[in-house]
């Protein structure tokens, strides 16, 4: 029982991280119906920057307060970096293709992901790189039962406020309203005076910012990064987004948690090497029986 609870705890922490990445996919898909293949590799670049910054400022040697301040600063910097990069890619690559057939932006996104991967290859080198352990591995819970370390705490401390902020942004601000309007019908949104391109750029920025934050947490939590990490993580996160109903923000969070739990439980009970297969079998089954995802709404095809 305790083993099971421990695995669930790991799953939820992992899932929160997956959800953060999934939000980037789901927001971009929600607004321009594009599977942003480059999102995973964007996060890989964020992790590269995080590693460079940590090494440059020697954060690993600091005390408790320095470390936590440093982490917050890292999250902000990497978030800005990834957000900015995402906006730049949108401006240069995707925006000229707004009226092109659907395949064009999808293939371009695959192209961008290759370019990012190549940059990551130059940045990190071909081998795995270890990310310094900034946080103590001591158990924060009393007793020798469940393990809950500072790393797990970090994930929740960063993820939960970001998600709350995001839902406030989308639900209660003018910009959020504009985002929802563009997502429902870009033409009608333009007609009522919304600057559609700016709203799309902003969405890319928010998605990229969350991805940048995720990249820092990924580095601190998993402690190994490589130029190929984007593909696998992107795929899991995308699965989470689809599972929850792509385009739906709460859906991405729920999907992320489910994927995190599935991963940790299947690693514990079936074997790590089957995890990838299990996740994708679940994805296929969900898509077959409930293509709109857990929380998504169905869409009608139009001629």
């Amino acid at each position, binding site marked *: 029982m305790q083993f099971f609870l421990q695995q669930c705890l790991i799953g939820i922490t992992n899932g929160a991280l997956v959800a953060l990445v999934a939000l980037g996919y789901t927001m971009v898909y929600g607004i321009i*119906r594009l*599977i942003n293949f480059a999102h995973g590799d964007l996060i890989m670049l964020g992790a590269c920057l995080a590693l460079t910054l940590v090494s440059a400022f020697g954060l690993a040697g600091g005390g408790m307060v320095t470390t936590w301040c440093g982490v917050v600063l890292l999250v902000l910097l990497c978030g800005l970096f990834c957000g900015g990069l995402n906006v730049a890619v949108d401006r240069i*690559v995707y925006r*000229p*293709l707004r*009226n*092109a*057939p*659907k*395949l*064009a*932006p*999808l*293939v*371009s996104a*695959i*192209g*961008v*992901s*290759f*370019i*990012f*991967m*190549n*940059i990551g*290859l*130059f940045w990190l*080198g*071909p081998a795995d790189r270890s990310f310094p352990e900034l946080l103590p591995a001591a158990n924060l819970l009393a007793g020798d039962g469940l393990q809950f370390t500072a790393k797990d705490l970090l994930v929740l401390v960063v993820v939960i406020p970001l998600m709350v902020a995001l839902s406030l942004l989308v639900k209660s601000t003018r910009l959020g309203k504009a985002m929802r309007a563009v997502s429902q019908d870009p033409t009608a949104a333009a007609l009522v005076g919304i600057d559609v391109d700016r709203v799309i750029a902003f969405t890319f920025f928010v998605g990229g910012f969350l991805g940048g934050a995720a990249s820092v947490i990924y580095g601190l939590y998993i402690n190994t990064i490589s130029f190929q990490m984007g*593909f696998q993580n992107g*795929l899991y996160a*995308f*699965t989470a987004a*689809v599972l929850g109903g792509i385009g739906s923000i709460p859906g991405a969070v729920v999907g992320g948690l489910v994927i995190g739990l599935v991963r940790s439980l299947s690693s514990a009970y079936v074997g790590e*090497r*089957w995890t*990838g*297969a299990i996740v*994708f*079998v679940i*994805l*296929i089954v969900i*898509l*077959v029986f409930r*293509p709109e995802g857990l929380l998504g709404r169905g*869409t009608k*095809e*139009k*001629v």
Partner: protein
Amino acid sequence: MLNDRPSGMHDVTGAVPLRERLVAFVRERWELVALVVCAVAPLVVPALGGALGGQVTTLFIYCILALGLNVMVGYTGLVHLGIAAFFGIGAYVFAILTVPMYPFQMRFVTAAAVSVLATAAIGLALGAPTLRLRGDYLAIVTLGFGEVVKVTLRNLEQITGGMKGLNPVPPPGKGVVIGGTDLGLAFAIDPRWFYYLALAALAVVVVAMRRLEQSRLGRAWVAVREDELAASAMGISATRVKLSAFAMSSAVAGLAGCLYAASLSTTADPNAYDFNRSIMVLCAVILGGLGSIPGTLLGVALLVGFDTVLAPWADAAIQQWNINPSGSSLLSFSGWRLAIFGLALVLVMRYRPEGLVPSRRMAAELHKEHP
């Protein structure tokens, strides 16, 4: 481009100069010209009897694979991100039917036929429940299926040999003696035998594709691509048409897989059938021109040529001129491989989405003013 055949008038009057007629002939019958050139090449170029012959054989096999993918992505407009899985299934089924480890040990042709059918059946089994999904969801399902297949091939060690793969796959015609020589031995010694086998298979696939394109089914594929709802309103069963595209695509990929396993005499390790392979084949089809047979062949030739000819040559040149004494990957040509592919994809999508050698219909569709 392919359809602007010269009118009969010129041929009758004979007033057209020879050179122009030659160009027209090559345009009209490019398949035949290419086939003759490829068929004669091993007799003229001795290098094709060595390692180069093996490389060109692999090129032909990728061409077959890409033509299979083209059925789905090009004709029917369904994005397929897991074609390598079907390539792998073909290779593994073929290997299971032929390697000494298993009791079947079928002849080449029987084993190839069975594995093509098996791959098509698996394609149908995946396609039947998933084809009602929207375009991008379908793309993800195929991607996920590709990962599942790769993980399964890697983990079912008792059946697939795990990372070692299945080997040795015997050469075709083993034990068949013609004129005193064992055909299998001939295949094993001289790569030109495989060269001709792969070329023949490619020729058959190209002709079959050309016929399919113009058939009722082929036109139905295109109709579904252009507008599924309108096509079903015209009485086309979109599901059946898409399923047939899925099965055809899988079957052709399975054929490519058989040839691949036979020519390497091993299935290689499961990573040979991963997402990267799928994406590279997809890139080839897109670069060359969706729905265009010559475009697909050109795309594969460009991509494979980049990896096997251009990149080694440029690296050697960089080394020779001593530009890169420290051996940094920034200054090696092959270090930029991914970025070059990525940039090519982005630029093609931006400026020439119909590809380098477009099919006329696709070009018209992609450049229409009002969607």
